[in-house]
């Protein structure tokens, strides 16, 4: 039970970080990306690859994962700067599909379909962290750091520029904001932190394959942001908690016929999401309307 909760805690922290990083570009830069799992994935493979072949020190795997994901985000920046709105969603979808192919085929780096197996646990000053109960502390620290970074970013002049761009790109430019650069930088920051958490995730699971980084993961992260409340600071975390604990909470409802539990779970999940969006389009934390 303790391990079960610790495991849920790790997953909630990991997905909260992913949702926060996606919320940053969705809610503050107006970039709707369906490719967030790509950066999570590249971070995970980079961290896993380095841990398997070189060192499992957190001070190497995490920064390396951040750099790789940030650099790759420049690929996504190219369409961001050229197309708008729904076209960009399609462009990011294309990137997601491309990345899945790459994850599956690039055996030397990703282990192909089989994935990377036996990734050593991360080490912090030489101490290996492998028990879920200690790992949960690492991820909580990572979550707090992430919240802090984005809080500062959103409330700084960088965040104001970003929100101005979201509200009116042409007016922001007319007042001196270099729109392409600001968008690119925010994408890179978002991708870097998604990559960082990917590296943590890889060392936690000790095994990763492409299944964790496919379109449904990107969709799940986006759902967390929207359900929690796009453009709010607490929303992504609430969204991650709700979407990750709901399925397990439903399993504890004893009166439900156990044989049908899977289907019932899906129905409650789906109906809940639809009703929420009907009655609280701004998400759980969001301000209702608009």
């Amino acid at each position, binding site marked *: 039970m303790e391990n079960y909760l610790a495991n849920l805690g790790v997953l909630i922290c990991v997905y909260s970080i992913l949702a926060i990083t996606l919320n940053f570009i969705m809610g503050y830069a107006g970039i709707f990306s369906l490719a967030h799992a790509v950066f999570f994935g590249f971070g995970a493979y980079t961290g896993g690859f380095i841990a398997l072949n070189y060192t499992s020190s957190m001070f190497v795997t995490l920064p390396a994962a951040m750099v790789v994901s940030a650099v790759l985000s420049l690929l996504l920046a190219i369409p961001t700067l050229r197309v708008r709105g729904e076209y960009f969603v399609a462009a990011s979808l294309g990137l997601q599909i491309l990345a899945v192919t790459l994850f599956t085929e690039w055996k030397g780096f990703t282990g192909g379909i089989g994935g990377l197996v036996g990734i050593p646990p991360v080490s912090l000053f030489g101490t290996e962290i492998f028990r879920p109960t200690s790992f949960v502390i690492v991820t909580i620290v990572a979550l707090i750091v992430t919240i802090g970074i984005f809080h500062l970013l959103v409330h700084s002049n960088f965040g104001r520029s970003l929100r101005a761009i979201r*509200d009116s790109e*042409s*007016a*922001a430019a*007319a*007042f*001196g904001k270099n729109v392409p650069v600001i968008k690119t*930088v925010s994408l890179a920051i978002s991708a870097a932190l998604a990559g960082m958490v990917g590296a943590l995730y890889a060392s936690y699971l000790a095994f990763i394959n492409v299944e964790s980084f496919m379109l449904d993961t990107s969709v799940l992260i986006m759902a967390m942001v929207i359900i929690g409340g796009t*453009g709010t600071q607490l929303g992504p975390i609430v969204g991650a908690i709700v979407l990750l604990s709901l399925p397990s909470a439903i399993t504890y409802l004893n009166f439900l016929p156990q044989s049908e539990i899977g289907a019932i779970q899906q129905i409650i999940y789906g109906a809940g999401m639809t009703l929420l969006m009907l009655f609280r389009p701004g998400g759980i934390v969001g301000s209702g309307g608009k």
Partner: protein
Amino acid sequence: MTETHTPEETHEDKEVLMELAGLGRSFGGVKAVDDVSMKLRAGIVTTLVGPNGAGKTTLFNLITGQLARDTGHITWLGRRIDKIRPHEAARLGMVRSFQDLRLFEKMTVEENIMTTFERSPLPRITTPAKRAERREFIDRILERCALTDKRNTRASDLAYAERKFLSLARIIAAQGRLWLLDEPASGLDPQSYNRLLGIIREEVQTGVTVCIIEHNLDIVIGISDRIAFLDRGKLLADDTPQVVLNDPKLASIYFGER
């Protein structure tokens, strides 16, 4: 054009801030701006008038790089600027308003103002003294624009006239040398437009050059040092108010259209 005027009257004693030379832009065969040449002199208010669709807004878009021009070039303080992007124009000191305002709708009045004078997007540490100075700067702008009690109101929750003044407040805050105002007075009640004219006059006193698109003749007469008349993309006149307002040919174009 008018050899009978003294240099003061034609403002030829003033430094040329910006010169447009043969600017042109077409949309699908229609010349929205057609071979427009004019000088904007420092500290002078030029009103740009002309019927709807004359190309006034398009001319602003060409100046600030919002639209690429097909022909011509622009000189800024004697330096030719060939290809310019909107944020670069802003950094040179050209600030503009939009006919449809384009406020930062989900941001507060104060944030709208702060955003326009923060040049660098890099996060930086502000000292308390700097912060107090900034606060005072914003307070003064809010007061001038009658937005003091709206400081923390979202732009989208403002009333019509307040929105027009927030658009102006952003421009004041940007501290540019050239203001390009696209119909800032349209729909304003007399009290509000007098406030607007007061602000423009004060800024001109401090050396700001203004080019303002305006239809209301009272305002045109009240504020203009010069009037530029645009029709179907062509600049038909650019002269002192007396000359332009007394030209029967221009009046018939202007009033005939309504």
